[in-house]
């Protein structure tokens, strides 16, 4: 059955070449950043660059398997795949290995598997199947809640690890649902929640002296400001909006104000009173808030210095003083982009960013040319997930986003991440290869 299908496979070689280029560039960066002068062979399997070669080999195997599978398999098995990974996420909470305070790994000897990376594949497949199932309308509240439940179940399990970075990448699916017809207000509301939530922690970390009440958490300043803003908004509506829309907008302003205030207050309350100290500290570090630990700002500072050290044309392969002297701890994982920036400079960094943009653009093109809605939604899932990783990871390296540990797709060292992104991408390539034989 599979054999008959693959004869007229129309593989998108451009995307595959882009994938190959990113993986190669990524491996070279790992080879440079993790280089051990005593063991210079790329095939040193005790070092990161040797191990990554093993993972790349595993990926080639996975690619062949995926391309040999029938495209229908992904649609049919979507639900099972989804629940398989949900099961793993539950299991990892019980028997997982704790690394850096998060129970996110299955340890198998020297190697570790991070199920949260793979769970995105399950969510992507299941969400695509759910949205593409007949009669699905994302405007429908019940459907919307069901869709959020599909995303939310693994998200909650990841929050329990806790792995805030992986959790944030799940925001990618909101972008997908937006593309599939969910109101843009959700996008705006989601964005606003993130901003309000972040601000409430950042502002709430301080203390302010208030008249009559004495010194209290500064969160009240924030809530008072929200109140003031909404009054300004009400005045604006009263004076500049046509009377027939006024009533609706009044309630929008008041409801937003109440929602925003309660969100800010409850997040601040949870951080201050519910979370344990080390969790709270981790969130503070993530938001670049002052923590007692000295090294909290060290990584961010070193990453910026390393990027700056590259200059316009870069220091050259194996020549970056910051990279070669290991100033950025574990640079080959989440900070790998700083190695690229130092050794390949502005030109190399921009090239990498453009390569990612091209990949995402290509995925959108692939998605849009699908006849099946399942394939299209899935294509957007892949594009959005890669985008979220790019957004958070590079933002972190450039000091524009807080320090959140998530990998840069295809670049960062690590088998779970590389394999998960490879599977994610090649399922799309496999789906696309049969787009002409699928009927709408």
């Amino acid at each position, binding site marked *: 059955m599979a054999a008959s299908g693959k004869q007229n496979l129309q593989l998108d070689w451009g995307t595959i070449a882009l994938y190959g280029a990113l993986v190669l560039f990524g491996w070279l960066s790992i080879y440079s950043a993790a280089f051990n002068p005593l063991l210079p062979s790329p095939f040193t399997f005790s070092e990161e660059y040797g191990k990554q070669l093993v993972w790349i080999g595993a990926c080639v195997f996975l690619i062949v398997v995926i391309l040999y599978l029938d495209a229908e398999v992904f649609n049919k098995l979507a639900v099972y795949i989804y629940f398989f990974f949900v099961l793993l996420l539950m299991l990892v909470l019980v028997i997982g290995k704790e690394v850096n305070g998060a129970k996110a790994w299955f340890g198998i000897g020297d190697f570790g598997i991070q199920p949260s990376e793979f769970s995105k594949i399950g969510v992507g497949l299941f969400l695509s199947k759910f949205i593409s199932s007949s009669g699905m309308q994302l405007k429908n509240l019940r459907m919307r809640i069901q869709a959020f439940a599909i995303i939310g179940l693994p998200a909650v399990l990841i929050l329990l690890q806790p792995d805030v970075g992986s959790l944030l990448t799940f925001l990618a699916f909101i*972008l997908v649902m937006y*593309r599939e017809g969910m109101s843009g207000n959700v996008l705006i509301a989601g964005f606003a929640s993130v901003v309000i939530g972040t601000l409430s922690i950042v502002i709430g970390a301080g203390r302010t002296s208030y008249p009559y009440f004495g010194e209290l958490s500064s969160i009240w300043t924030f809530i008072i400001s929200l109140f003031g803003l909404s009054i300004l908004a009400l005045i604006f509506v009263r004076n500049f909006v046509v009377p027939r829309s006024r009533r609706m907008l009044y309630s929008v302003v008041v409801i937003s104000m109440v929602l925003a205030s309660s969100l800010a207050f409850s997040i601040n309350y949870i951080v201050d009173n519910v979370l344990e100290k080390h969790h709270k500290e981790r969130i503070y570090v993530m938001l670049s808030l002052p923590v007692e630990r000295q090294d909290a700002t060290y990584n961010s500072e070193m990453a910026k210095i390393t990027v700056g050290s590259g200059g316009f044309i870069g220091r050259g392969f194996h020549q970056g003083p910051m990279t070669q002297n290991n100033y950025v701890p574990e640079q080959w994982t989440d900070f790998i982009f700083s190695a690229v920036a130092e050794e390949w400079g502005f030109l190399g960094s921009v090239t990498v960013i453009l390569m990612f943009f091209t990949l995402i653009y290509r995925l959108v093109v692939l998605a849009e040319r699908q006849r099946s809605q399942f394939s299209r939604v899935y294509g957007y899932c892949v594009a959005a997930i890669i985008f979220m990783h790019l957004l958070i990871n590079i933002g972190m390296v450039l000091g524009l986003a807080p320090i959140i540990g998530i990998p840069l797709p295809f670049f960062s060292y690590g088998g779970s991440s590389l394999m998960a992104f490879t599977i994610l991408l090649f399922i799309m390539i496999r789906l696309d290869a049969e787009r002409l034989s699928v009927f709408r």
Partner: protein
Amino acid sequence: MNNDNRRYTFLFIVGTICVIYIVRLFALQVATSEWKNKGSRLTEREVVVYPSRGNIFDRNGKVLVTNQTVYDLMVLPKEVLPFDTLEFCKLVNLPYDELKEILKKSTTYPNVKYKPSPVIKQMLPEEYALFAERLYKFPGFFVQARTLRTYPESLGSLLLGDVGEVNKDILEKHPDYRKGDYIGLNGIEKSYEKELRGKRGIKYVYRDNLGVEHSVANGQLDSAAQEGVDLYATIDAELQKYGEQLMQNKRGCIVAIEPSTGEILALVSAPTFDPNLLVGRARGQNFSALAKDPLKPLFNRATQAQYRPGSIFKLAQSLTALQLGSITKDTRIACNRGLIGCHGAHSMDDLEMAIVHSCNPYFRGVLQRVVEANRDPNSRAKDAAIGLSIWNEQIRKLGFGSNLGSDLPGMKKGNVPSAEYYNKKYGVEAWNFSTIYSIAIGEGEMLINPVQMCNLVCIIANRGFYVPPHTVRQIGRDGSARAEYVTRVDVGVKPEYFETVVNAMEKVVGPGGTANSIKLSDIVICGKTGTVQNEPREDHSVFVCFAPKENPKIALAVYVEYAGFGGTWAAPISSLMIEKYLKGGTTNKGREELIMNAKILN
């Protein structure tokens, strides 16, 4: 409803983020070099090139102080790879617990991972040789060579001084010193620190990924180290060593100066110690042992002890009274032992014989003539105040009450009582000559140090001038002494007044004199014995002298604490020193042996 246009919104969001990141990259990498410079400061290491400190030679070119290379084993934590700690500890001979502690400390504030910290300091070359070949197996560990002082002759510890790492106080006061730098703390090392130190060089290096160091900017930013300047001391190593041997098992000091030049030939403070004790890793331990020693070997008796001058001060009194016209060499004063005690058979000496006999009533009378000259006929007290001021001024010209402009650090100035001093002590006009007369014979409130005493002998030997006593005659091989040590200081006493004093001193070391026993057949020694009273303990034995009488080559002041009369110990030590310096040694081996074996440490 068709949502197809939303693909553009999606791509717009992605594109916007990419543009923001590219702009940010431009800001970090291209627009400013701020971050690049921060990186350079981290990765480019400043390697301090320590200059070797100047050597010190004696007046005959013998090496007194030089340098030896020692090695500090350092660790650069960020480069340390997992290693066999047991093997390492065995190799460098360090207990495992200590290594663990050191490694922990090397990464905790204020130490940081990318700055080296010492593991073992100041290993001798033979210690380092034991593991030098195998150190490469432990990345992150390296050895830094430094130099330490060493004293081949093992003499003159307090005179030469010692060096130590700069402390916080020095760092705050002298910004050109850095943590880990050495500085002279004492003696010549301290007073000639500027010359000996040299100039630290700085080399900027950048380490590539193989750990190989390359110079930055072709070494254009580097500054070369400038070696310290060699000093040629005035010390005669042979004489100094001999003096230290003579003074062993005794407390006291010997100061020997060449009168015509002010060059210090020997400066012995006993008990002494081997200067090599204060070098290297054992320094701290040895230093505290020396500091706790009740015999106070760290106390430089030659410059810091303030003794009452005793009888030898009569030499200064004679010169002062003659110059002020209060007496002539023929003035005779009765030995009235009712006023002040005396010893020996004499009754009505002139000045010369009064010096020979050390007649106390005579010198009481001399000071009375100086101080009570009826300058204020109405008040004996006012008269004494005026007279004492005149006396004080003249005595000070002989170098008392000052550090003589010497290069010996930390010299105590002593005390020359003035009218203000007594006004403070007794009240204005509440004292007169009979209150203060004991200073006439060098007792009472008068305080001097042995270098000042020897300097007085130089003045007498030179018949009227001195050159400030100093320890370095040449700065650099072709240099000279500091300018202030080549000019004579005139003391304002006419040369003819010295003849009486010199003749008297000659008679002291002659038949009937108090130091007759040390008379030499071939060298005329002019001297004066003295004792410093220390009731209830034994007196200090004091002897000052110069030789030969004409064209003197050496002036000496010898103090032996708690040893009784000056003629017994201090005088024979002086004569042995003179023979050593002028003839290369004594023929009187019996005396030499007796003195060297004598133990006066009750």
